[in-house]
């Protein structure tokens, strides 16, 4: 393609409609619905994130959230306010945030203090595809530096894992969402990635060993249970296949949990792919996965969690499989359409 053709293609692209995620539209609507009465009104002191209501309401909620870990009375009050009294409602996987709204998040509220750094594991969410814990870290002194969890060890299903991060690695780590909220405090979620079957009930041992450059010991023993989320989980194996000149694709599994709709496609690659080097093949599959779109029974695209988290999250592409996470959908019988570019269109029935 030469520059002139690129120019034409760009102009053509500009005339195409652009999918705006529903959550983005809703978020804009919320701001618009809660504009001050007059544009001359003073600016709200604090507004943040997905749940935006009036400035006063949010400021009040923020006070409640920050206070609820020290005041049992306030903690009780905030528990009565649905969905808001959780770290998970502010940061982390957007699908887990939906599950949180459906009441699937379990309270943990364990606190450990070392070297003046206070860490609270506030809540946990666990289903067959996702495990997420909400964390609040408060440092004793303010710092202009970005502060983060440098080293941790965790134990799941009897297996122990140690993770150590540089600052850049931490910022890009898909297992952490991390946000400074003021007053020397960060809100975060830790979402260890797993593919294997984990026990329905377990205890996750979490041991932070260096936070903000300070060696210490912040240990947690967190009960996790899928008892409730398993009741709200369905797995379909449609096994419908379509072939193109270059590959065939089979919808192997669709897993619906309260946090996620995971679509697992298996691939049969044709000759062109067979001649690629391993790196080339990896990139080709990556590009193929970016072309996958899933539409609900009304033809609306399901918002992608994988892309929201950066294309590396999920990490379940291989030379024979693509796995992509989308926002959760109803467990009722329904249908989806899976498209890959213009060449593949697979209707899928879900029981």
């Amino acid at each position, binding site marked *: 393609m030469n520059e002139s053709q690129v120019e034409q293609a760009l102009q053509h692209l500009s005339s195409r409609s652009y999918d705006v995620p529903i959550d983005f539209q809703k978020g*804009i609507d919320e701001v*618009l619905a809660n504009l001050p009465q007059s544009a001359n009104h003073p600016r709200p002191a604090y507004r943040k994130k997905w749940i935006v209501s009036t400035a006063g309401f949010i400021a009040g909620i923020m006070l409640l959230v920050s206070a609820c870990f020290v005041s049992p009375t306030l903690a009780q009050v905030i528990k009565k306010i649905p969905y808001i009294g959780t770290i998970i409602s502010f940061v982390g996987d*957007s699908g887990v945030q939906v599950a949180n709204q459906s009441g699937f998040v379990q309270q943990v509220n364990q606190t450990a203090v070392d070297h003046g750094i206070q860490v609270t594991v506030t809540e946990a969410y666990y289903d067959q595809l996702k495990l997420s814990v909400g964390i609040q870290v408060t440092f004793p002194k303010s710092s202009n530096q970005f502060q983060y969890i440098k080293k941790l060890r965790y134990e799941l299903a009897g297996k122990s894992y140690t993770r150590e991060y540089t600052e850049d690695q931490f910022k890009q780590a898909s297992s952490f969402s991390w946000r400074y909220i003021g007053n020397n405090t960060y809100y975060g979620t830790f979402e260890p990635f797993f593919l294997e079957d984990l026990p329905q009930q377990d205890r996750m041992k979490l041991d932070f060993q260096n936070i903000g450059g300070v060696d210490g010991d912040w240990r947690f023993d967190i009960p996790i249970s899928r008892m409730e989320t398993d009741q709200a989980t369905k797995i379909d194996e449609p096994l419908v296949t379509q072939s193109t000149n270059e590959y065939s694709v089979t919808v192997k599994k669709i897993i619906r949990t309260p946090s996620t709709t995971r679509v697992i496609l298996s691939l049969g690659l044709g000759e062109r792919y067979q001649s690629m080097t391993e790196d080339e093949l990896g990139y080709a599959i990556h*590009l193929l996965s970016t072309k996958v779109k899933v539409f609900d029974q009304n033809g609306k695209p399901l918002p992608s969690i994988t892309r929201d988290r950066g294309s590396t999250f999920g990490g379940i592409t291989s030379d024979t499989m693509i796995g992509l996470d989308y926002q959760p959908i109803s467990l009722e019988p329904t249908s989806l359409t899976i498209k890959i570019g213009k060449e593949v269109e697979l209707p899928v029935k879900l029981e």
Partner: protein
Amino acid sequence: MKNLSVLEQEVELAQSGDREAFTRLIKANEASMYRIASAILQSDSERLDAAQEAVMKAYLSLHTLRNPKYFKTWLIRILINECRRITRQNNKVVVIHDMKEQASSHRFEETVELEDAINGLEEELRLCVTLHYLEDLPVKEVAGVLNHPEGTIKSRLSRARKKLAAILSPDSSDRRAGYE
């Protein structure tokens, strides 16, 4: 008597305190806001943060907009500032280098699409392409939004076209040169 376009009338209504007019203006620009935020920020939650903040700032400072004709450009400038603030605040790195490095050395002419190729450009080029080609802003307005001379914008657009041509070309040596 002024001969105002529908847009200008809406902006004037909004400036006079009509919240519904402001809402219509924002909804009309919602897709553009998402697309531009996507050119800078990596996650949808950050894009929404930036857009929400930009909408509120635009509402509170609407009276400072002198020429209603430039509402969209003005809104985009606010949005870009918010995106950059979030990038600085979170010290987030836009992870595009993986794709660039991979694209620089391999041939995937049949699978690389234009949108993927745009996403693989550096932010300064991606933003110029998004504003000029996808949002149809003239070079002069892109220069105003990004606070750079028109010549710089033209040069960036030219570099972007060259790189896109290289990425989308079946000639792998051209493609490699495009990223060097």
